């Protein structure tokens, strides 16, 4: 298995820059997610790692070896396509054995290997069926079979669950993750689904407009977003953004917003100007004693919790509160925020302002 490093990777298609100077490192055996909205360059990045696309500039290192200009066939990687791309004129067995045949493996060995892979994936009984009649899940398993049969250095997957229906997707996600844990293979996985990324990934890279916005463990990305984009893309409902004009001094632990002093993690850099006070809905409490007030404009019942939407002086705020907390539309209530979890953003640049909370994450993101 392998460790993959991407350095200053760029890809331009004519005037269009698909990927702009991306740098990140994938440790050996990691389940690594490339996350972002469609058109953000995540698939292009993956294809450059695979060798299906040659970068305009930059380096791709697999196990320390520079491979960015090598053809895909020489990189010893496996790729799982969104549409599976099973060879339609071959049956399941031939599809899985195809990569082995290309290496010139003797046929009895191929047969053994295919049988072993089929056993792992639970598809032994469909080996002689044509691929055209298979269900989405079975096609996915055959595509995985074709990928793992070769023991490649790493697996690259381009939204492999995107073509499956919702119910089956969950099941397949678990299967994929447990397969990864059993094989310990480095896996790079592209998705636009933030839940999938959080659920399956050891580490996540969030991309937008061809730029790496943040890179780290799911929890770090959720709790300590480096940019406004990451904060809004991850989490549902997304982080609340309260816009205000103010100042924060290095070492200060509060900001003044609409005549109220609100607690923030200790700032590590001074800032003055238009700011955003970012707080996750679960860190907002409805508190009649609170000085900062808002009017309830909507409630949304979700079973154990409810999402209460309030209008405040600094914009709309969503709070995730227990469902038994009575909240009626039109009521004006006090709000309190869990200051230790707050991130302040510079409105202009969209970047998080350094604080005791996010210092560790920002320095390497």
């Amino acid at each position: 298995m392998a460790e993959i490093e991407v350095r200053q990777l760029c890809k331009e298609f004519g005037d269009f820059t698909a990927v702009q100077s991306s740098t990140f490192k994938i440790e050996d055996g990691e389940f690594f997610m490339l996350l972002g909205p469609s058109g953000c360059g995540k698939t292009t990045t993956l294809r450059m790692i695979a060798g299906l696309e040659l970068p305009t500039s930059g380096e791709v290192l697999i196990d320390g070896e520079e491979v960015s200009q090598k053809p895909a066939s020489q990189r010893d990687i496996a790729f799982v396509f969104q549409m599976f791309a099973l060879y339609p004129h071959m049956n399941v067995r031939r599809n899985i054995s195809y990569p082995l045949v290309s290496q010139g493996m003797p046929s009895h060995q191929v047969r053994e290997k295919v049988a072993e892979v089929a056993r792992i994936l639970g598809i032994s009984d469909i080996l002689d069926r044509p691929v055209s009649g298979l269900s989405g899940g079975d096609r996915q398993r055959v595509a995985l079979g074709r990928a793992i049969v070769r023991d490649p250095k790493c697996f690259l997957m381009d939204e492999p669950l995107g073509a499956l229906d919702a119910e089956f997707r969950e099941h397949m996600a678990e299967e994929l993750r447990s397969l990864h844990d059993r094989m310990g293979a480095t896996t790079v996985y592209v998705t636009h689904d933030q839940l999938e990324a959080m659920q399956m990934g050891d580490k996540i890279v969030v991309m937008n407009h061809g730029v790496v916005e943040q890179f780290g463990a799911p929890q770090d990305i959720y709790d300590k977003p480096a940019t406004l984009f990451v904060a809004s893309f991850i989490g549902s409902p997304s982080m609340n953004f309260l816009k205000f004009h103010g100042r924060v001094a290095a070492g200060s632990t509060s900001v003044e917003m609409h005549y109220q002093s609100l607690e923030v993690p200790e700032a590590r850099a001074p800032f003055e100007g238009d700011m955003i006070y970012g707080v996750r809905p679960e860190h907002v409490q409805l508190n009649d004693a609170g000085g900062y007030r808002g009017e309830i404009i909507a409630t949304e019942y979700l079973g154990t919790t409810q999402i209460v939407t309030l209008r405040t002086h600094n914009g709309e705020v969503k709070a995730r509160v227990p469902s038994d907390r009575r909240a009626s539309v039109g009521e004006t209530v006090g709000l309190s925020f869990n200051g230790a979890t707050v991130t302040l953003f510079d409105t202009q640049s969209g970047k998080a302002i350094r604080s005791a909370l996010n210092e560790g994450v920002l320095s390497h993101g």
Partner: protein
Amino acid sequence: MSSYSITEPSRRQKWIAAILVVTYAVITMLPLLWIISTGFKSSSDAIAYPPKVAFQPSLEGYVNLFTTQTLQTPEQAEAPPPDTWYGKLVHEKGLAIVGPSRFGERFTNSVIIGFGSTFLSVFLGTLAAYAFSRYRVPLKDDLLFFILSTRMMPPIAVAIPIFLMFRSLGLSDTHLGMILLYTAVNLSLSVWLLKGFMDEIPREYEEAALIDGYTRFQAFTKVVLPQAATGIAATAIFCLIFAWNEYAFAVLLTSGAAQTAPPFIPTIIGVAGQDWPAVAAGATLFLMPVMVFTILLRKHLLRGITFGAVRK
């Protein structure tokens, strides 16, 4: 009463459709049947008026097609008829066979030129279509338009320049010349048709093959070509039908060694005027290869000419 359905045609509609289809089939098949039956008529039955539908079948036409005959000399008339059945048939009419006719050669020429140019058109067309479909070709759209523009006038419009070119290049009345000519005419059709088919084949198949350790060329031959088989078959049929049936250039550019069957068949003249049964026999035999080829590839053709309009 059957229940009413929007999509399922009613019994009456099905009957009307069936009658229309059968009527159309009969109308289109009639000339064909007439030619085939004329091939088995005697010379007098062939020109009888009103036309004879029921007649005594005879192989006279086929014998005349394959042999050259002359009036019997007095010695031949007195000698006993030859042993062969066709010799007897000719002898009864007061004629004698002097040798085989040129039909066999002409037919062979048609096979060589027709299939040769079809192979070449489809071979070159497949490679070009693949390149246009998969690579960033500079000026791609202009090149494709240019290729198509060669079909914007009837090819025969340039007959005179081609005639002169062929004469000075020594290509007149050669197999190579005719193969090149038909290939040139068919190539634009073949590139355009095949590009459509190639575009339909998802790139992921090749990419999967590239990652599985195959070269680009292996991915093309092992993954793309089997997928494109339908399109290639449909294109081959179109190319063959054109090259097989082409008449005007064949008349103009061939006269002997490389003459194809179409200009030859109408020139079959019997001892006493136009020999219609022989002409009909020639036309019947001439139909066969394209018919067999088309029937063999019929399944592909039906799927092919819908241009993958229906997603699989």
